[in-house]
């Protein structure tokens, strides 16, 4: 087993970037960490700095002001990093795609590995996305 495969096997550390969202996805992500769903039992936890993270969670539509910050975050991230786009806005821009400050869905800005659609995705869907994520190793 290669070293990279080994480090992405268990205990993924997550960094959460909330773009111009409506908070629903943010809450559902947090909800996954609380007792009912409790993904922390797999060693997954939110960390305060992107420099400690294995996974970058991005939700919400990205506006022009966020775009600069998202790129900055992505450049600060230790590579390889897995990027997850959460929610309709993260995947496509959703209802805000026609807005005058919209700067393109997440995959137009940084490469995305896993998409979790839904408005907001249920915690079950997020856990399903996590399973996909564990099965998908970064190149």
């Amino acid at each position, binding site marked *: 087993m290669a070293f990279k495969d080994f480090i992405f096997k268990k205990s993924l550390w997550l960094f959460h970037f909330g773009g111009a969202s409506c908070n629903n996805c943010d809450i559902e992500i947090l909800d996954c960490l609380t007792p009912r769903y409790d993904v922390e039992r797999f060693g997954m936890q939110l960390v305060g700095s992107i420099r400690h993270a294995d996974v970058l969670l991005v939700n919400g539509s990205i*506006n*022009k002001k966020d775009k*600069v910050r998202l790129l900055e975050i992505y450049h600060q991230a230790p590579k390889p990093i897995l990027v997850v786009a959460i929610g309709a806005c993260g995947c496509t821009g959703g209802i805000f795609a026609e807005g*005058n*400050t919209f700067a393109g869905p997440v995959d137009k800005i940084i490469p995305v590995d896993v998409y979790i659609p839904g408005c907001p995705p249920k915690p079950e869907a997020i856990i399903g996305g996590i399973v996909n994520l564990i099965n998908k190793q970064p190149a």
Partner: protein
Amino acid sequence: MMGKPEDIIKDLKGIFSIDILDDSIKSETRASIQIAEKALPEISKYFHEDLHFRFIIASALESKRGFEIYYHFSDDQTGCVINLHVILPTENPEIESLTALFEAANWMEREMHELLGINFLNHPNLEKLISEGNWAEGVYPYRKNYE
């Protein structure tokens, strides 16, 4: 007891006779009063300090008549909402700031300045509130000619 919009408008006409241009009463608790722009600070002061109305927010838009601003005031005893309506000219719209009266107007005026380009006189800090760096100086996205 103040409370009914018709009483408020009657009193207002007594004090600021020439500055009240138009009024319309929609219901027991809703009314709009069009006022002269130069009288806005005095009338707002009257609402805020004498009648103890709470400033909710101001809504601005661009229309055929120029730039219109609705200042919404609420009486929390009776549930009455009064909209003070001013119309500013399309060329060089400017009006006195209300921030000196109540802090609540501070952010709203910055936002209107940024999105519609309305100038607020004597405002402490008219920096951009929302879009810093997003659109250029002199570009106002909520104006009709945007894009």
